[in-house]
Structures are given as structure tokens and as C-alpha cells.
């Protein structure tokens, strides 16, 4: 196998131009890419190393919400003060992501663009209605994260496009969120079911105003469970309602049987974990105390 040519663009524009070539593959932390190359699953002709690009790394507050540069490393999400204050769930998920060594290399953009069904960081972004910022030869565009994943290892990115950042609207008041995943072991494992939930409650804390549920590892892509959300929104929150929502989440699952778990078990765990994640999210939703 021929060694791929390595390009080191320093601007997004250069990267986009380089990626237009046939056989060009974008590289960031390379924690998914190198193993795939070793196994011969990907044979790039050109590797475009994005890590030298300035301006698409780090976390910022903007008028439209929290902006996270695509090159932000997973480890950086763990102790970023803006994330801690506004999107603590993202830091929680980052803390359970692979191992410290991998977190020090892997980027949030890479985790999303690799588009594994089990992509951990996709779930909090989905429940916070995040938008992907994309740049290509014809300029900028935005893609809702719920439209970003198109299949196993497939995204909505077109040839020559790169993900530059994520825009996450600041969570609304009285919102609580939670994430749970199941693997065979507690670390260094791919989840066989991952669930994130975010709920906004009414000012009296009784009703569910808004609900988001995202499922990982139980379908070709990370995805929202719209039916589960619909069960909850506008309703008075009861244990029975949460059970119904958990049941409804299963209909969004399209699991396969593989080395990690059977499809049946994944469906069942989708229900169990959705229920648990929703309960935890409601518990975390700050309530306005009566004066």
C-alpha cells in the first residue's frame, strides 16, 4: 500500500481546497482514522491534517449560543468553564469518553464526522438542538445535528466540506439533562446503548414543556426519538408518563445484533435507559420554588 501524501493546511480555505481532491481524507485526532487505516478499511491517497488550522478550536459564548470549535479536544470539554456553566452534560459525556489518552487526541468534530452509531458526543448535541457549521468551496452552511448523520460512518458533509464548529443554543430555563450508557465494561468500551435526555419543565415544575431524547448505538446513526418526545411535551409529568415515553423511544430504535449485544436486548435497554435518563433529567431540572 502506498503511503498517503500528507497535507498541512493552515486555513479552512486551504483545507477545503485540499479535500476536493480524489482520495483525500480529513484528519484531526486520528483516533478512529489510524485504526481504520491499519485494518485497511480506509485507504486514503491524501491525508489532510486539520490540526494546524487556526480559529476552529476552543469554546466561546456567542449571541446565538455556545460555539465549540470542531478541533476542540474531548479532554478540553472536561474542564472548560463555559461548558461547565452552560452545558455540563457535555462535560459529563466527555468524562466517560474512551480513555484519558484518547480524550487527549480525539476532537469533538472528529467524533461527529466519523459518525459511528455509538458516537458519544452526538447525544448531548442532539438533545440541545445543536447546529453543525460547515464550510465548503461554495461557502458556509449550517446543518441541524439531527440531519447531520446519514448512515454508519456517513454524514451530510459533501466532498470538500469540513465541519468547523458546533453551535449550541444556550439551554432554556428550567431544563435538566442526563446521559446514560451501557457497555460490557466501565471504561474503554463502545456503548451498546446510549441515551441522552433533556427536559424543560413548566414554572410550577409539574408539566413537561419541551423534551428531547436521543439514542445511540441502537440505529445506524445517533438519532432523536421523536415519539418519546411527543409523549412528554405539554403533559403533566408522572411516572406512568415517563414509562410511556420510554416505551415510545423503542420505536425509534433500529438495532442490530452484533458482538456486543443482541437487537432484542438493545431494544429492551433502550426502554430501560430512556426511563432512567428521563427521570434523572426531570430530577435535575431546576424548579422555581414557591415564595
Amino acid at each position, binding site marked *: 500500500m502506498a503511503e498517503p501524501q500528507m497535507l498541512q493546511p493552515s486555513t479552512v480555505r486551504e483545507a477545503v481546497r485540499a479535500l476536493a481532491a480524489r482520495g483525500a481524507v480529513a484528519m484531526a485526532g486520528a483516533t478512529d482514522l489510524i485504526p481504520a487505516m491499519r485494518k485497511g478499511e480506509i485507504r486514503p491517497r491524501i491525508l489532510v491534517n486539520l490540526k494546524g488550522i487556526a480559529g476552529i478550536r476552543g469554546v466561546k459564548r456567542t449571541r446565538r449560543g455556545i460555539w465549540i470549535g470542531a478541533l476542540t479536544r474531548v479532554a478540553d470539554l472536561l474542564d472548560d468553564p463555559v461548558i461547565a456553566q452552560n452545558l455540563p452534560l457535555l462535560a459529563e459525556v466527555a468524562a466517560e469518553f474512551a480513555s484519558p489518552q484518547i480524550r487527549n487526541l480525539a476532537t469533538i468534530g472528529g467524533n461527529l464526522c466519523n459518525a459511528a452509531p455509538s458516537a458519544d458526543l452526538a447525544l448531548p448535541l442532539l438533545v440541545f438542538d445543536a447546529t453543525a457549521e460547515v464550510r465548503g468551496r461554495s461557502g458556509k452552511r449550517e446543518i441541524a445535528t439531527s440531519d447531520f448523520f446519514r448512515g454508519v460512518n456517513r454524514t451530510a458533509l459533501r466532498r470538500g466540506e469540513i465541519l468547523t464548529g458546533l453551535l449550541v443554543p444556550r439551554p432554556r430555563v428550567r431544563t435538566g439533562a442526563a446521559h446514560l450508557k*451501557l457497555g460490557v*465494561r*466501565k471504561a474503554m468500551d463502545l456503548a451498546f446503548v446510549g441515551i441522552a435526555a433533556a427536559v424543560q419543565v413548566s414554572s410550577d415544575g409539574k408539566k413537561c414543556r419541551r423534551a428531547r431524547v436521543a439514542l445511540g448505538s441502537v440505529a445506524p446513526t445517533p438519532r432523536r426519538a421523536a415519539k418519546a418526545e411527543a409523549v412528554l411535551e405539554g403533559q403533566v409529568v408522572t411516572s406512568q408518563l415517563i414509562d410511556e415515553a420510554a416505551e415510545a423511544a423503542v420505536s425509534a430504535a433500529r438495532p442490530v445484533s452484533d458482538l456486543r449485544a443482541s437487537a432484542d*436486548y438493545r431494544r429492551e435497554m433502550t426502554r430501560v435507559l430512556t426511563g432512567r435518563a428521563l427521570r434523572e433529567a426531570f430530577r435535575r431540572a431546576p424548579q422555581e420554588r414557591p415564595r
Partner: protein
Amino acid sequence: MRFTAVGKRVPRLDGPEKVAGRTQFGADIALPGMLWGATLRSTHAHARIVRVRTDKATKMPGVLAVITGQAFPTSDGEGVPVLARDKVRFQGEAVAAVAAETEEQARAAASAIEVDYAPLPYVADVREAMKRGATRVHDESEDPKHPNIAGVAEVKRGDVEAAFAAADLVFEDTFETPWVHQGFLEPHVSLAAMDPASGRLTVWTSTQAQFNQRADLANLLHLPMSHIRVIGLPVGGAFGGKNAVCVEPIAAELARRAGRPVKVVVSRRDDFFATRPCGASVMELKTGVKKDGTLVALQARLLFDTGGYPGAQHGVGASLAQGPYRVLNMDVKSYSVYTNRPPAGARRALTSPHVHFALESQLDIIAHALGIDPLQIRLRNALRKGDTALGGMEMPYTVAGKVIRTAAEKAGWQRRRRSSGRGAKARGFGLAAGHWSVWAGASSAWVQVNEDGTISVVTGAINLTGTNTSFAQIAAESFGILVERVTVHQGDTDTSPRNDGSWGSRVLFGVGEAVRRACEDAKRQLAEGLSEEMGVPADRILVSEGQVSVRGKAGRSLTLAEAASRAADYRGAIIGRGALSDLPFAVAVAAQVAEVEVDRETGQVEVKRLTCSQDVGRAINPMSVEGQVEGAASQGIGYGLCEEYIYGTDGTLLNDNFMDFRMPTSVDHPQYQVALIEEGLDGGPFGAKGVGEPPLVPTAAAIANAVYDAVGVRVKQLPIKPESIVRALSGGR
């Protein structure tokens, strides 16, 4: 007896260099002009080799040697061909090998070798393989009804039929264990060089048994043993997986043909699917008991999957079948069964973890059925002095009951609180015991007293588990000096006395005793050498506390340094010799209590606490022994909960890497509590016996029993999967 060095907690002497990353492992070493070797492996689980064409590969750039099965007319000491000759019997079996200038060239050339296979039906399950008319793994098999039996062992005792007839209750259960990798992190690696002038071959390798390697290589390469030097390198994990030859003969034959050194580093994938992992088993037990829990009869049929080539599982398995319990009537039939899987190798306490998973699970089933406390049923039946144990030997002491009781007490067994009422999480406790026998084999050591009063110990035993540190303690104790005054050298086959391999928990027990005897021999030589000068007979000269003195005459003493240099003037160097093969089997008993939390909704099992007790004879280095116990138990957690080879329907191993073959990580471990029982002294150094293997034996059963205690689900198949617990709890199948 008061000790000064034995029984002290001494950090491993080779610890600092390992932690600092300075240890040179096999993959780190290189020689000038070195070539790289690569193998071509079978893509079929079972096929006849019609033709192997190497002409294309031979002409590829950088290629200096290509070999096929014809290079090795003989099989290795365990009956496994180095390169398949007429037939491949498992997927991954090596068929040909190449040496080239670079690793990439070698790999490219290996994959350019063309093999025409005529695929055969294959058999992958021991029960299938035992059926009449099953696919034959070996054509030349003599038993037409059971062509795949590789070995049978029987243990018969008493009158089983009569005992079953007299039993109050009879229990029949079948248990299964999976194929697993031993879990060593350093893949097999070997570097070989042949000196063109002398024709002598030197092999550097990651092995547990350098002298056995030498003997096997002499056979395989048709070289005189004196022409072979094997240098055992620091080993990055083995657990039985590096007992036998692997790529050593391939590297050696390629080096001989190419006339240059050749290094072969086995890839992780090959290491998983093509070396010698631990085989699966199916164990059918029929046990008769009295209402009070007394075991009266055991009938067992044990099927051990030995893969494509012979193994030793059946004999060891049969000898262990009674567990650490008194069973007067037994009829055990144990088989090693051929299948189209890799040749089964050893793993820590060969077959004992399998057998005890079955026995100890069934004992729990019996206890619950009879309404007897699982601790009491074990104490009632525990082996006592004089009982027949281990396929015929007589139990030399009463210690099993104490080991079991200690584990229970330390775990708070009587106060244990099962909480399976509210919430999704239920807690449970499980007790299991197990035994293992330790054979010292042929052990030897040299000890030199240097003129500065320090001691050099030389052995040919591969230091896997910190045994060199314990040797230093033994020598320090023998001379009454500080451990720092002893250096321990692991020699190679040219520079050290012969030793059996580092397996069977034998190194400290046997080689440690050889070190102790060598020290005594050196002390005797010192005394004899100084007898004339000191003007007293040698038997009145005493070597202790780093001094050489005359018994009963205070003040007339020499330091060890003075004594050594003077004695050397009279006699030459003081070199003690210890060599033995006369130690009896030592029996070691281990017991563990697992405290688990089971999530009733997800089926996830978390081991919260694991309490381990074991009779160790004497803990020469308690820190090291505790490390062995915790390490083995952690391996048992993996065996119990997550490790298994998963094969596809075409016989392909699907999880051939550490991402998909899941061993517990550091965060998956519970709190360990270890109790060492220093009784049952057994002829090893200062009473020590083997400790490394027994603590793997009870773990999986202890976890299975705890799962039952927590949620009432009896799992008879390892690993215990969350999915099967959920299924059982929801009443489905």
C-alpha cells in the same frame, strides 16, 4: 521461627526499570543485518492443502527466504506442526513463512504465497465432535466411534452405583465455559541468529520455558542441543500462553536459510486467533448427597476442547473433579476433544477454573435445595488430613476448612445482608472454593559467595511474577544479610543450570527451594574452607547474621566478606549448588467470597468486593503473594463476566483484539481483601508453596453464586451475560 528477610514486603527488584520503561522486551531488540519474518495463515477452519506456490513470493523485493510445511517434518513437543503440512485444522494455522529486509516486504511476500485449499466440513463444538459420524479432525484416528477423542482420563473410586442408590437426592447439571485468550499484553516475539562459522543458533524469545524451547528447537530443526542457545527475555505477560514454542522455530529456520538474523513479531490478531488460547469446556455433573449435605457420589463427564491438536486438559481436569472436598465414590471420565479451533494451550491453573466453576456452582444449587448455608455445606465436606484427594494422593494436612472459613469470616458472611427488595439493584454474596496441586519438577540454582560478602544467585527460571525478588529474600535469610546484598541473575540455556518452565506455580516452590539448598551448600563449603584456619571442625563453624563464627566461642568471628575471600584462597570460588526433583506435590486451597450488585433491569453485574483466602505455606514476600492473588482474581472476574471468543458461522474469530475481547479495566475492579494462611507447610523454601494459580480457580463460581444470591438466577454458562440475566428475570428464554 523468627525471620529477618523472609516474610518481609519487598518491592519487586525489576519494578523500577519496568515502570521507567527501560526494560527491553522482545520487540525492542534488534541485530545488525536483521531481517523480518512474516507468516501466511490459513483462512479456512478445516481444509486439505492441495498446493502451495511460493515462486511469486520468492521473487518479491527484499525476500531472502520462504519456507512451507516441508521445512519441518516433525511436530513440536505437544504434537503441533510448526507449519501445516497436508491439512489445516484451524483458521489461523501457519502454512508458510517469509523473511525479507523489511516488515512490510515480509508481509507483502507472505500474502503473495498462493495456497490451494480443498475445504472440508468443520467441527467447532465438543459435543458435536463427540457424536458418531462427526467430522474427523485427524484422519488417522483409531477410534471409529469417537474419532475426535484426543485423550481420556478416568478416576474411579468406591461404588458409585450403590452410593447413588443410597443418596437422598441426586443433582444433574451441565456447565459450559468459553474459549478465552490468556490476556497477556505482549504478543509472541522471537529473534533468531545463526553463526555461520560455528553453526550455532541463538534464539531470543518471550517464553516461560527456555530449556524446553531448546529441546523442542533441537527436535524441530534437527540440530544438536549443544548448538542451540535460548535466551529468555523479560516477559510481558504469559499466564500459560508462552509454555510452548510458537514462532521460535520459524524465526530460526528462516535465519538458517537466509544466513542473517530474523525477527518475528506476532500481530495482535494472530496472537488471538492463531496461538494457543485457553479452550472451552462442557461439564456434566451428577452428584448424590445426603439430606445433611454430605457428598456421597460424583459422576462426571468432562469435555475439554483441545482444538486442532493434542492437549493435556483431560488428565488434569479428571484429577481436580472432586474439588477440595471428600468424595468417597467417584466415576469421572474426562476427555480432550479435537475440534477445528486453535490448539488449546495452558492458562493459569489449567482446567481448574473450568472444573470448579461447575462443581462450586452445583454445590451451591445443592445447598439451596437442601436449605443448608453454602458455607456449612462446604465445611461439612472439606478435605481433611488423610482423605483421598487429587485423583489418588493422600491429603497431607487439614487446611481446606480453615481456608473456606477464613474467606467467609473476612467477608462478613454471617452478617451478610442480601438486599433484593426495593429498587433495580440487588446485592448478593457468593462463596466458592477450589484447589490446585503444585509439582516442583526439576529445579536448580547456583549461589556464589563473593569476596565482598554479597551473594549472587543464578537460575534458569524465567522471572514472571517477581520470583527473583523472593529468591533474594531466601538467600538473604539463609546468610542473615540484607536483601540488597543479594543479586539474582536469570541466566540463559548456556549460562544457567537447567530448569523446567515457569508454569504450574512451581518456580518459588521448586526453584526457591533449590536456591535455599544452594545457599546451604555454599555455607557448608565456607565452613570446610575455613576449618583449618579457624582450627575447628567444619561442623562447628556457623554462618549466620552475615558472620562466620565458631559455635560456642564468642569473639572468633569473621565477616562474610573476610570469610569468602579467605575460603576462596583455600578452595577457589565458593559456589553452592541446589538441584532437586524430589519434592512431593503440594496442594493449595483457595476460597473466595464475591459481593455483587446486579441491576435487575439491565442485568449488569458489578463485583463490589472480592474476599480471597488461600493457604500459601509461607508467604516469602507477602506483597508479591497478595499481588498474585489479586491479579488472578481479577482474571477470574474477566472469565466470569466478560471474556469469551466469539466465532462467526464460518469459523472466523470475530473479536480478535482487546477492544472487542473485553478484559476488565482498572475501573472495573472491586475492592480486594486478601487473607494468607501460613499453614500446610510443604517442603518448599521455609514452607512456601505455589501461589500464582489457585486464586483464579474459585472466582467465576463465586460470582455466579453471588448473582444467584442477589436475583435468583442460576447461570451455568460463562461468561455471565447481562442479557441472559434479564431474560431469566423476565421469565423468557
